[in-house]
């Protein structure tokens, strides 16, 4: 399941989507929106994506994880639009025979997604809003 959605991500559904009787391990990463950034209170967040390219890259990343870590199944779901504090903006799930591979593949996927996949986060503060990314 590779998906970009504008509603709440159903985490249980994402996990179920990587279920496999030959898998012994599932690692799941959930990115959630924080109430603080750069020392200031964040009121809410908004995500924007270049959808066709982001979907394509997420598919390619999933394929790369399959090849490199003998992944049984991988799902990546990113939410766009407004996301309230504490809600999931991204969910990545990876199933493998053994846990080491699940952790490594999941870590690779979120690290690479954050570095390269064309999605942007706008943080709304009491005194204005700012696109994250350049400062980091």
């Amino acid at each position, binding site marked *: 399941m590779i998906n970009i959605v504008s509603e709440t991500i159903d985490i249980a559904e994402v996990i179920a989507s990587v279920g496999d009787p030959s898998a012994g391990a599932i690692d799941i990463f959930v990115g959630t929106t924080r109430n603080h950034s750069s020392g200031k209170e964040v009121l809410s967040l908004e*995500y924007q994506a270049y959808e066709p390219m*982001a979907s394509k890259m997420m598919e390619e990343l999933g394929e790369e994880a399959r090849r490199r870590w003998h992944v049984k199944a991988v799902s990546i779901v990113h939410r766009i639009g407004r996301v309230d504090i504490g809600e999931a903006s991204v969910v990545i799930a990876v199933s493998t025979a053994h846990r080491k591979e699940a952790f490594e593949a999941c870590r690779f996927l*979120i690290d690479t*997604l954050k570095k390269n996949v*064309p*999605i*942007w986060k*706008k943080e709304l503060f009491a005194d204005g809003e700012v696109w994250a*990314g350049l400062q980091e």
Partner: protein
Amino acid sequence: MISVKVKLFAAVRDIVGSEEKILLVPNGSDSGKIIDVLAAEYPQLRRWKPHLRVAVNCEYVSSDHIVHDQDELALIPPVSGG
């Protein structure tokens, strides 16, 4: 001249005030040139140039990548998904 579509995102979209622009540029233009053409019209883009990656048809390309008629480009400011 060739015609390319340029998709705009995040801070760059806010500066241009539009999700995309259709640009007419000389044959043989590279992706760096596309940014210059837009920056001529929107001077605030100049300070962004060193931070922008360019994608052509949904693939990142280098700044000397030659664009073709009907290509879909995207200016990619530093990403912050996840």
